[in-house]
Structure formats: C-alpha cells, structure tokens
C-alpha cells in the first residue's frame, strides 16, 4: 500500500476513495470472481428493504446516449435473508461495507434500519431517492417534510454511521442536504438516478411498465458534479459523490468539487474491472503530479 490514496471517511479508514455503488455490484460476490475486489475502498450493498421484493415486471433496462435507464424496482431478498446469507460474506472482505436501506413507508425504513443496526456494519446508506418503486411515486427525499421525518426517525435507531443518499429530483437538493445534516446524518451521498422516460415509437407505448425509470451513466455526470459542488459549500458533513463516473478524471473532478470519496455504478457494466483500473490510474496521477495524498485535492475548486 502506497498510502497515496488512503482517506478517512467518518471513522472509517478507506484504502482509497473508490466505493462501488448500490445496485451495480450486488453484494460483491460476482465481481469477486472477476478480480480482487479487496483493492477497492468499499462496496455498497444492493438496496435492501424490510421484506423481500421481486422487483418490477417488464423491461428493466433501456440504453440511451451515454447512459442507461433501469427499472429494477429494488428486487432484493429482504433484510433478514441478507443478514443470514450475504452479510457474512461482505463482513469477511477487507474493505468498507456499506448497507443500503430502502423503504416504501416510514415504519419499514425504521424497522429495517433497526435490524441492520444490530449487526456489525461499517455504515448505513439510507436510500430516500429510488425512483423505481411503484408504491412510492414520490420518494421520501423529494420533499423537505418527508426527508426530515425519515432521517429523524431512522437516526433514533441507527447506532452506526448514517449516510443519506439524495435524489437529483429533489425540490431543492441543498435544502434537503441541510435537513439531513440537521437531523443527525453523518454523511451525504449524491446523486441517485434521475427519474426519466422512454417511448417505443413503433408501438406508441411506454418502454417501462412502471412508466418512469432511473437514468444513470456519463450523461448525468455534469449535473451530478454541479450538485456535489453546490451541496459541499453548504454542509459540513462529508460527501460521497456519485453520478456517471467512468474514469479517474471523473473521480478527480468529484473530489475537487468537494466530495470526500466517490461511488462508481454504471461504469461497472461497461467494464467489470473498472474499479481496479481507476485505482491504478489515480495512483499514477498523484505520483506524476507530486501529490502525497489524495485528500490534498478535496474541494480545492471553489
């Protein structure tokens, strides 16, 4: 370990600021067959809910220019099955493991967080921003009142570090981030996918059964970067930047804009080994630019 990429995020010492985003990396098992994922700073679990979910019907993925739309709908085994069957694997890995928790109502959010909070986990990422859940046409993270409510109640039961994942569709993302901070969130991750739409013009029908889907990939990166930059100026808790990162240059932009670490999602689909490539490239960048630790560049662009 060169120490070039070491960075603390809350109390967690990350080997590097590269974390794999929820829903793009499963629980780590599949990618562990492809490369040494312990090179990564961390992974965020697939989004989990209190009860198992079978996910959405119909087409779940649609390609668009420089991006993709997904309508998975939080298919997951439920928190109990996760704790029994998947968490031990995540805990066995020498990297930060962050558990992503979703819900469709306040009670489920609190119960799921309570359950996972009793286990040994590095952090919870509270997903208040999934656009793909039918019962929940307006995610909690869109409105200030519902954001405040869910973060306040979840905070009461969560003993581990709590990070809240924001939606780019929020009424006012800066206000939402401030509310999370006020209600005791330890960190913020942004952004989740954009609510988006696609139509089959030949059939004159919508592509997705659930009508709207989540847009991700390089096409959202400049907006995500702008949001990270805006939010970073207004809050004091650390930020994980997410949105269309595909290479080390993108990572550097997010860090310079004020993120303390980043999450990589869709890029895993393009090249399953993208994580290790980005880490190597980041090291080379720091060496050739004579930077002794990556933390030196965080937020340096005002």
């Amino acid at each position: 370990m060169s120490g070039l990429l070491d960075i603390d995020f809350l109390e967690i010492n990350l080997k590097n600021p590269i974390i794999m985003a929820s829903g793009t990396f499963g629980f780590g098992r599949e990618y562990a067959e492809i490369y040494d994922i312990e090179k990564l700073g961390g992974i965020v679990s697939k989004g989990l809910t209190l009860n198992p979910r079978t996910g959405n019907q119909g087409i779940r993925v649609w390609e668009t220019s420089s991006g993709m739309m997904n309508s998975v709908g939080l298919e997951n085994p439920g928190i109990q099955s996760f704790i029994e069957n998947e968490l031990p694997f995540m805990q066995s890995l020498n990297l930060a493991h962050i558990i992503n928790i979703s819900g469709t109502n306040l009670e489920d959010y609190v119960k799921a967080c309570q359950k996972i909070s009793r286990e040994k986990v590095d952090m919870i990422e509270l997903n208040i921003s999934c656009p793909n859940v039918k019962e929940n046409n307006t995610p909690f993270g869109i409105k200030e009142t519902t954001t405040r409510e869910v973060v306040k109640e979840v905070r009461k039961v969560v003993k581990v570090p709590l990070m809240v994942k924001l939606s780019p569709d929020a009424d006012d993302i800066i206000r939402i981030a401030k509310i999370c901070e006020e209600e005791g969130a330890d960190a913020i991750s942004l952004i989740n996918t954009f609510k988006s739409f696609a139509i089959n013009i030949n059939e004159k029908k919508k592509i997705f059964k659930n009508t709207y889907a989540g847009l991700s990939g390089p096409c959202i990166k400049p907006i995500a970067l702008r949001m990270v930059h805006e939010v970073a100026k207004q809050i004091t808790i650390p930020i994980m930047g997410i949105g269309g990162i595909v290479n080390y240059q993108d990572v550097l932009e997010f860090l310079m804009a004020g993120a303390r670490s980043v999450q990589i999602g869709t890029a895993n689909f393009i090249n399953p080994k993208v994580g290790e490539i980005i880490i190597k490239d980041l090291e080379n960048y720091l060496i050739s630019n004579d930077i002794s630790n990556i933390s030196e560049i965080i937020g340096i662009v005002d």
Partner: protein
Amino acid sequence: MALIKYNKPLKSNFYLLKISGKYEAKMGQFFMIKKDSQFMFLNRPMSVYDLENDGIIFLYKKIGKGTTVLADCKKGDEISIHGPYGNGFPMEVEGNIALVGGGTGIAPLFYATKQLKKTCKNNIIHVFLGLQEKNEFEASFNNYGDLLQVNYGGFITDYIPYEKYNTIFSCGPELMMKKIEKQARKLNIDHYVSLEKRMACGVGACLVCTCQTKNGNKRVCKDGPVFRGKDIF
C-alpha cells in the same frame, strides 16, 4: 480490446463476426461485446457460435441500435469483449439428442452440436432449424450433426419426431420453446432452454435480466442463460 477478423453479412440480416484471440467457453455460454460508439453504451450479450484456435465467432442479426453498430464494423476494427459468462448447456446428457433453434436462437447451437459430437460420441445428434430463408451457415451443421432438418418460414416445431429423443436443447422464440416443452413434458424428455434478455452487467449483479421461474426470480446472465424447460414454462 481485440481485433475483428471478419464481419460477414449473410442473408436475412444475419452476420458472422469473428474476433481474434484465444478464448475458452462451454457450450451455451456468452460473451459481452461492445464497439466504442455513441450509439452503443452497453455491452451486448452474445452466445458463442464457434471457437477456433485463432478466434471466436458470433452469429447475430441486425435488429436494433447495437447490432446496427456491430454490422458496420470492419476487418481490423477494435472491439471490446469479455467473458465467458453464464452456466451453459449440461455437458453430459442421456440418449438421443435434438437441438432446436429458431432465428438468432440458432447462434449457441452450432458450438453445442460441435461439442456434443466430442463429449457424447455414442449419442445420436439431430439438429432442427427454423429460418426465414435458406442461409449459407446452415450447411456447416452437417459436419457435426447426424441429421439436419431446416424449415423456412413455418414452425420447425411441427417437424420434430419428439418421441425419438431423450434430451432436447432449444433456443429461439418463446412460443417455439413453449411448444417443445409441452411435448417434452408429455414424453418425459429432458428439455433445456437458452433464454435471451436485455442485460447490463452480464455477471449477475444488476438484476435487469431477471426472469420468473417456478423457483422464483432467476438471473438469466448468471443462473442461466440455460434453464430446464419445466422451470420456465
């Protein structure tokens, strides 16, 4: 990245694409392929049509945006390829075998026929293909199959003497595989189907290619693409 050796247009918008390099794969497995283009963001899953010492061959049909980008590729172009992924067809099977392919579903069956000829020397291997029109690739099945029957424009399922077979591999339109499964169930034939779905990761992580089975949701890319017919229909 690898180099394209040829990308040969055939009738009915079919193409045979050969990519250079050394590859290994079990029959029924697939690779993720992508050309660097603004019109192709995600990889395309393609099952192995054939493996040669100096490259891998895919049979595809130009249908949508992605395959249109692929169809424009020329000899010497660079292309990204990774894999193999998926479970593949079972290696050891019992008795007489029929392989039934419809349209692009034919793609995995050539390599399967070739492999079966090696691993199941004593079994009879019959191939049934459903196509729109006569195509030049079909004759190569004669090199490995003990019988080749092709139907043009109709239903290949009407021409299969089901009672002769102990095992069937099928790949093609859902209706075709469903019809075969109906017969397979009646006659107690081991029927394996290879499914096709839109994919993103190809490795089992993203859950966009989930299919419903009798045993709950399964990932076509990781738990499949080959399933038992009775678990799907």
